[in-house]
């Protein structure tokens, strides 16, 4: 999996947080999504710099002190698919 995904700089995300829940607004689609901590963290990592799945697993496990196991890998795959579907992230052209 070497596909790099990132948040399109043309449409920067807007965030608001209530405890464990995060609201994120995507200026392109005009849609607002409610996401949990882990998803918010993943998305914010992609906002900072485009990554592939393996890199995301490493970064997430480090910053959230989580086990780098299959569950996390699977979670990220799923989250990426969902983000792609919602248009929150795009295939990184560079």
């Amino acid at each position, binding site marked *: 999996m070497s596909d790099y995904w990132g948040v399109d700089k*043309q449409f920067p995300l807007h965030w608001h947080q209530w405890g464990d829940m995060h609201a994120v607004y995507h200026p392109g689609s*005009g849609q607002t999504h409610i996401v949990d901590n882990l998803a918010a963290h993943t998305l914010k990592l992609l906002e900072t710099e485009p990554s592939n799945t393996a890199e995301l697993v490493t970064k997430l496990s480090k910053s959230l002190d989580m086990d780098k196991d299959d569950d996390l890998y699977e979670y990220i795959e799923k989250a990426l698919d969902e983000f792609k579907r919602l248009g929150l992230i795009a*295939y990184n052209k560079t």
Partner: protein
Amino acid sequence: MPIKLPLLLKILVKPDYLPDLDDSEWDLLVRQARASSLLGQIYYLVMEGGYLESVPERVRHHLQSENRYFEAQKKSVLWEIDNISGTLAHLDTPIILLKGAAYLKRGYSVSRGRIFNDIDILVRQDQLDRIEASLKQKGWLSTHLNDYDQRYYRQWMHEIPPLKHHTRGTVLDIHHTILPLTSSNRPDIMKMFDASEPLVNEVNISVLSKTDMFIHSATHLFHESELSHALRDLVDLRLLAEEQGSELFCNELTNRAKELDLSWPVSYALYYLKTILQYQPAECNHDHFGGKEEKTVPLFLAPLFTRAFMPNHHSCTNFFSPVASWLLYIRGHWLRMPFYLLIPHLVRKALARDKNKKKHGRFFLTNLNKGKDMNKMLGTIGLVVGVAGLLLSLFAGIGRISGSYYLMGFQSMTLLNVGISMMVASCMVKLYSE
């Protein structure tokens, strides 16, 4: 020209008047501008002149609301273009944005405050099938599902039936040339392709050259049959011409228009820019079109267009407006699709198909022992009903086009339907009596 210039035109010609308007004048201006889809333009004229402070608070809210609406549309269109571009990237064929979408992507002043409904793209005809297939895989659905419409578009039009995204609702018009295939003008579209300019930071998105944008816009305006946005379109042309900013523009425009065989719409455009908006691109004079300006627009058409360029608001219409818009409606259709060719052709095709059936299929008619008188009477009835139906349809059609929702107390569309039904019924009777 009307003796009294509508307020909206005065302001478009000379925005310096804006700070002097009183509340009642603003009332009229906002209504005329809104009805002509030019409220966004007024907002920008206010901002450009630095007049916002002088605008009454109530009015300011309307101008700013219009601008918010525009800004929202802008973002969603830019996003949609990104999606379309991504969906079609693997095809490696240029996608040329037209009109509103192109102006936005280029950041031209003509895009400011301009509200539009559909995204228009121009693609090479030999790539149409691949493009359509790719889009359909990504959730774009055809809006015209019946076979007749599909055939109609593909056979006669310059575009395929519009696609609509099934969740986002955006409508995408895919053109393969700029005028209907049946129209008398058939510019060589490849010349426009060759001159198109790729956009920076885009893989497959291009726009027409500035000159071609002007020619395209003018061509559309003067081929149009529904001229409810005519004034907005004319303002577009002014802003496009201003965007050129080159003293050579007029030479370029003239030569290019000749090359594309579209000289007349361009000279019409220059004529009305001058007469309606009192605008003349730098270095432009009518020597460019080899004649005096009066000669560019035929005498009988000139007053019709002058009417059509008045604000689309009841404060600016007179008895002549519905007549003018009806005549222009007919003219537009005539230019785009010559009925004298199309209708006989369609009828011939339909009959040719039926001929084979008739040999076997008319038993129920021949079995009926119809007397000659019966036939004659049926024929007469058919004729009378048909003519009445035709008259009723024309009456209803003219009424509807000239803006009357109601005629003789009935919805004009109801009358139109009745008229059409009568014509159909008369055809059946006439067939039967043959």
